[in-house]
């Protein structure tokens, strides 16, 4: 089966620091970290203590509410530190990789039994890599998904080309699709960017997607294929995770190696490096960040949804990308609001950059203005390719009006889908945070 969707709304941001060649530089693995906060909805309980030796794939934490769901260690080594924050909250578990101990955990799985597949996914840590709508959380083990949506491309600014990740993994993708198909009575949709060469297995429904970012977000694709209604549950994941699931089905192990795209305007030589999930960022960037006396912001992920790593310095799930931009807190700009500089990045035609469609920019992290009430109207609609009225949804979210949020489609949305709304907003409202908080609030109130 094959479908095609063409998304008109959205925005591709042209940033400096894109990768133009696909060869990968290997980087030795030192320390890695698993951060439970990257897995929304997962309440961590430790399975290891400091000093424990772990094998690759061994469980580090399990979910307090669903004990079978685990977070696995991506390397074999020694638990070096368990970092806690306020009220002893677990911030991350750090592991030192040891090359001599390269034990790998193998998992039992019967690819013909849904129960066995589920158990293996949870035990291996792959379950936690998927997301559930509503709420954009790690899937609830008690709920059967109506459909499963797999995205085969990442449309975010400077994002890595996912087709490199799945080259030669047709077998794994097929096995993964077969396994997921066992878990849903509905369809497994795999969305491929139109024009890209990724083979979609028979069991799945192929969807050809064209259009600017956020067309690569699984949730946006879902909203345009079969929207999530109240009471529905769907899963979203990307094709790299799908290949890992297939690997588990075929080889009984999980491959935690990952290729990371090092990008951004403050990087000398944008390139791919190969390492493992959760690796420390400093070795990946060594000697590659511009020494131009500017403050830098190192982002694990892309500039729209990524996480600032000033706090810890590890790659956060689900990102396979590092973006380095200038922080910008050291710039004194006289009357910036009146600027006609061609280096100002904007969707507004009041800046000359609008005439330079091909130009790429090096923006910094300044919010370029002050926080205001919503003044301009219709700005968000231009970058959200879903049948949703973003302004009203945001207002309902701020007002914590559960009925209104339901009616306006909160179940269909994840914060990442509205990242571009936040980027274009002249009132500089923290939209993703508002949506995240509203989703958490709803889940708590509805006890879901």
């Amino acid at each position, binding site marked *: 089966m094959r479908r095609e969707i063409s998304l008109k709304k959205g925005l591709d941001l042209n940033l400096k620091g894109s990768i133009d060649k696909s060869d990968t530089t290997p980087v030795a693995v030192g320390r890695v970290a698993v951060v439970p906060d990257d897995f929304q909805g997962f309440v961590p309980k430790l399975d290891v203590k400091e000093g424990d030796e772990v094998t690759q794939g061994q469980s580090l934490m399990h979910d307090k509410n669903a004990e079978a769901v685990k977070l696995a260690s991506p390397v074999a080594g020694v638990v070096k530190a368990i970092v806690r924050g306020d009220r002893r909250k677990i911030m991350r578990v750090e592991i030192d990789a040891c090359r001599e101990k390269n034990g790998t955990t193998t998992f039992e799985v019967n690819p013909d039994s849904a129960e066995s597949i589920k158990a293996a996914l949870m035990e291996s840590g792959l379950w936690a890599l998927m997301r559930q709508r509503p709420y954009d959380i790690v899937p609830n083990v008690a709920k059967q998904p109506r459909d499963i949506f797999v995205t085969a491309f990442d449309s975010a600014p400077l994002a890595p080309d996912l087709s490199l990740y799945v080259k030669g993994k047709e077998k794994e993708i097929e096995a993964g699709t077969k396994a997921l198909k066992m878990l849903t009575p509905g369809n497994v949709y795999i969305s491929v960017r139109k024009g890209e060469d990724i083979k979609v297995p028979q069991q799945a429904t192929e969807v050809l997607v064209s259009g600017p970012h956020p067309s690569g977000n699984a949730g946006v694709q879902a909203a345009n294929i079969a929207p999530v*209604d109240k009471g529905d549950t769907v899963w979203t994941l990307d094709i790299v995770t799908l290949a890992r699931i297939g690997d588990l089905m075929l080889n009984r192990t999980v491959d935690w190696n990952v290729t990371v795209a090092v990008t951004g305007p403050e990087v000398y030589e944008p390139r791919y490096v190969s390492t493992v999930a959760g690796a420390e960022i400093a070795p990946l960037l060594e000697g590659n960040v511009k020494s131009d006396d500017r403050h830098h912001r190192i982002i694990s992920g892309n*500039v*729209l949804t990524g996480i600032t790593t000033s706090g810890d310095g590890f790659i956060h799930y689900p990102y396979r990308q590092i973006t380095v931009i200038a922080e910008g807190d050291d*710039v004194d700009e006289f009357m910036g609001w009146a600027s006609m500089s061609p280096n100002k990045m904007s969707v*507004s035609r009041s800046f000359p950059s609008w005439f330079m469609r091909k130009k790429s920019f090096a923006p910094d992290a300044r919010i*370029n203005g002050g926080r205001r009430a919503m*003044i301009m109207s219709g700005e968000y609609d231009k970058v959200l390719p879903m049948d949703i009225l973003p302004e009203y949804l945001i207002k309902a979210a701020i007002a914590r009006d559960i009925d209104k949020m339901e009616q*306006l489609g909160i179940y269909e949305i994840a914060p990442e889908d509205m990242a571009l709304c936040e980027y274009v907003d002249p009132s500089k409202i923290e939209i993703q945070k508002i949506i995240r908080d509203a989703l958490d609030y709803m889940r708590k109130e509805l006890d879901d």
Partner: protein
Amino acid sequence: MLKKYLDRMKPHFEPGGKLHAFHSVFDGLETFLYTPETTSKSGVHIHDSLDSKRVMIIVVLALLPCLLFGMYNTGYQNLLGSGATEFPFWSIMAYGFLAILPRIIVTYVVGLGIEFAVAQWRGEEIQEGFLVTGILIPLICPIETPVWMLAVATAFSVIFVKEVFGGTGYNIFNVALVTRAVLFFGYPAQMSGDHAFIATKPILGLGGTVTYADGISGATPLGQIATANGGDFVIHNIIGQPISDWDAFLGLIPGSFGETSTLCILIGAAILLFTGIASWRIMASVVVGGLFMGFIANTFATPTYPASYLTPLQQLLYGGFAFAAVFMATDPVTAARTGLGKYIYGFMVGVIAVIIRTYNNGYPEGAMLAVLLMNALAPLIDYCVVQTNISRRMRRLKAKTEQAS
């Protein structure tokens, strides 16, 4: 250097400093002069360069042609009325400048003063909304409006139309238009009729004294039409010469300060539309609404309502219609905010403006009331549009549950 000075002054305005009571003013000035160094703390790491300061400044920029032409027209009308035969450009401009300057200063001082005080009281940053309002108010009032009235009306509407609702971005009604409405209903004698629209006295030796000859009035074209008796009438200017549509397009007619020249308003419209700051949906549908209703009125023209003899095009050229379409109806805060809602809102503004000016001889101009009325109805229009989105979702859900059962 300026930056160093600001940095040196800053500690005085921080909590505990001796000038902390004025920190909003200081912050306002600092962010006006220098782009804030605040960087994003959550969500996206980069933000678009457009901010509300730039939005407001572009609107002010778009208003400049109207402001400059208003100066010229004020001087010109004064010279014309006082019987001059020569019209030297610079002295006309100087006269107009001197005539409008106190009005602009007073509205800004009163309005910004209240904004600063409220921002300080609420502990917020000063917002730039009044930058636009403060220039709009003198532009939409007759030049002879006493300055103290402007001050009273501005204070009233800034406090009761904007601040009590929460400040910029929260108001229901257009602040500038409410100011004009307060003047219009509070001081009708000074705000309309024959003598409000032309500056009559010399200022600093410039200009002349206007004396109204018998049977000749300084009323606006729409004012003359509203008081006309019977079918044939000719719109004339202050010295009794007829006014053509071309004069009305250029704006050399009596009227409120900045809204006479359709040409300058079109320049402003081009700036707003090109930069995307104003909604083309609203602007276009106001014009369509005006033409539509103008056509109906003209088709059924009757001597009872002399304004119905105006052609649809004349409806757009005369009075404040064009100004309202471009600068008033498009205020994003008080207009409809949904895509479809904007079409309905704009169309209704156009229709109602023409209905009021045509079928109510007591109000020669209906644009102001039409926009204010639709400001009140905009949330209702949006509610209906949002409801269609909601019911689409609910229908989908219902179809699904029926299928399941």
